[in-house]
């Protein structure tokens, strides 16, 4: 529409026209090629046409965007300009801000501002094999962390890339938002997961959580993350069927990203500082959301002090899930008896007060309690009552087992878990009379204490 106008302007003063796609435009004056969009990117063009006035040194003095006859006339000082054209047309979006091109452009133009060292793979290297060869992988394929992908990942947080988030053991390295984003890309995260990953890294790199000890121990435990709040649904996490299994990208990649941070930034690798005798699939990365909607009970996060509706993450040091099967109990008392019976054997019947555990009730088991009017506090009280152990049964040597408590502990009642050491959540598919327990590692201040943190954007 403005083609003839450009020729008119050029008759009065010097005019340079850059064309983003169709080089036959304009016909009234010779245009210059901006097919690679570099001129558009450097001038922050968001709309075409954009008319810019520059001084003798090329510095911008003023600009107008789209077509407004009055504006163009005032801008050029030609009151006859475009007199036959419509009064107003808004223009079109510039290709340089097209979502399909902008990430690549930002990276190519060096405007990324990313501080991370670049690694060039050789022409003949397969990029996926190259990442294995450099030791970056947990054993599964990684997404190549190109600048464009890292920039896109960083769109998921309002934090600046250079912000130091934590000091990561075992190498005690300060980690930035940017470096977490690099590992989150590799893990397969979407940008909207990044705030969860950042919070998870913050949580494990605390003295209370003690990720260093967790790595170094020969016990087969890893960091497990329970997510609460609306963000669970917003980022598409699965709290239902197969909640601990395969099939959901957010569930699978958030924990993996954290483990890649520990590996690549912290330097904690199996056979190095990671000394787990047998390990566990949970160490690949395990995060899941609680099913808050499916129960009237307060959530795990609320029991741990968070306000309702707040996005939060609880990091716990745990092995993988172990089934608790009860298909016949129809009363809350019977089911609680069975669950207590199962919990008493976590790690072994001889292990007392030394480990925490996370009990995840399935919807069908939860229904037994909801139908009977039990709330979380009632369930906890009833369960803990049943988790007292007569030490005479587990003194060393009893039952033909050398493991156990020293003889000096005989004649006492002790709890299976330390006060506050049993954590309870709700998740799973609608059918199946199975719950799960995750047993932990050395609990309390001398080992690992679960950490609950708010997830901020």
């Amino acid at each position, binding site marked *: 529409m403005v083609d003839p106008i450009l020729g008119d302007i050029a008759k009065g003063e010097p005019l340079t026209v850059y064309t983003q796609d169709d080089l036959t435009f304009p016909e009234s004056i010779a245009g210059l090629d901006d097919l690679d969009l570099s001129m558009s990117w450097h001038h922050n063009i968001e709309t075409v046409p954009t008319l810019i006035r520059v001084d003798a040194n090329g510095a911008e003095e003023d600009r107008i965007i789209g077509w407004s006859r009055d504006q163009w006339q005032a801008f050029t000082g030609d009151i006859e300009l475009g007199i036959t054209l419509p009064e107003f047309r808004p223009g079109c979006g510039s290709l340089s801000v097209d979502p399909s091109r902008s990430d690549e452009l930002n990276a190519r133009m060096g405007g990324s501002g*990313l501080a*991370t*060292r*670049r*690694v*060039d*793979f*050789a*022409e003949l*290297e397969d*990029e996926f094999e*190259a*990442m294995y060869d450099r030791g*970056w992988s947990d054993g599964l394929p990684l997404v*190549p*962390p*190109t*600048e464009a992908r*890292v920039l896109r990942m960083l769109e998921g947080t309002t934090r600046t890339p250079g912000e130091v988030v934590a000091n*990561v053991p*075992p*190498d005690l*390295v300060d*980690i930035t938002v940017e*470096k977490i984003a*690099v*590992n989150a890309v*590799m893990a397969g995260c979407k940008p909207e997961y990044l705030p969860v990953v950042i919070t998870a890294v913050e949580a494990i790199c605390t003295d209370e959580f*003690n990720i*260093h*000890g967790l790595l*170094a*121990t*020969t016990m087969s435990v890893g960091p497990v993350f329970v997510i609460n709040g609306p963000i669970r649904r917003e980022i598409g996490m699965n709290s239902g069927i197969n909640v601990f299994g395969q099939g959901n990208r957010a569930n699978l990649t958030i924990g993996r990203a954290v483990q*890649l941070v520990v590996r*690549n*930034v*912290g*330097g904690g690798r199996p056979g190095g500082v990671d000394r787990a005798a047998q390990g566990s699939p949970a160490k690949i990365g395990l995060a899941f959301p609680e099913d808050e909607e499916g129960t009237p009970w307060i959530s795990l996060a609320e029991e741990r002090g968070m306000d309702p509706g707040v996005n939060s993450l609880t990091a716990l040091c745990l092995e993988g899930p172990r089934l608790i099967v009860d298909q016949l109990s129809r009363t809350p008392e019977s089911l609680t008896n069975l669950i207590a019976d199962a919990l008493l054997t976590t790690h072994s019947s001889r292990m007392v007060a030394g480990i925490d555990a996370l009990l995840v009730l399935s919807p069908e088991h939860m229904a037994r309690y909801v139908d009977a009017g039990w709330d979380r506090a009632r369930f906890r009280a009833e369960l803990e009552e049943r988790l007292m152990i007569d030490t005479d049964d587990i003194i060393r040597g009893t039952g033909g087992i050398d493991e156990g408590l020293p003889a000096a502990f005989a004649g006492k009642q002790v709890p299976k878990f330390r006060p506050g050491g049993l954590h309870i959540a709700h998740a799973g598919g609608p059918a199946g009379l199975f719950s799960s327990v995750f047993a932990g590692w*050395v609990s309390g201040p*001398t*080992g*690992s204490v679960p950490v609950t943190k708010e997830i901020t954007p």
Partner: protein
Amino acid sequence: MTTVLDPTNESTPAVLERCMRPESLAGLTVGLLDISKPRGNVFLDRVEERLNALGSTVRRYKKPTFTKPAPVDMRHQIATECDAVIEALAD
């Protein structure tokens, strides 16, 4: 060519020279670090007997918990007080 961002901590491997291994422990001060695992003391008691027989001076140290690295102060203390250190790693 693909260019990616380095996911590691980018630390240049600093090659630290190790202390020369002593020819003999006789006359040296040897630290024994108990990491607080069960029965570590039994092992270290025996090591201490053997070191005393060699003519070493023995100093004993104990970590507050085996689950965490030795506190920085303790590591510094061992480094400044001893010529060599033996650590009882596990039960």
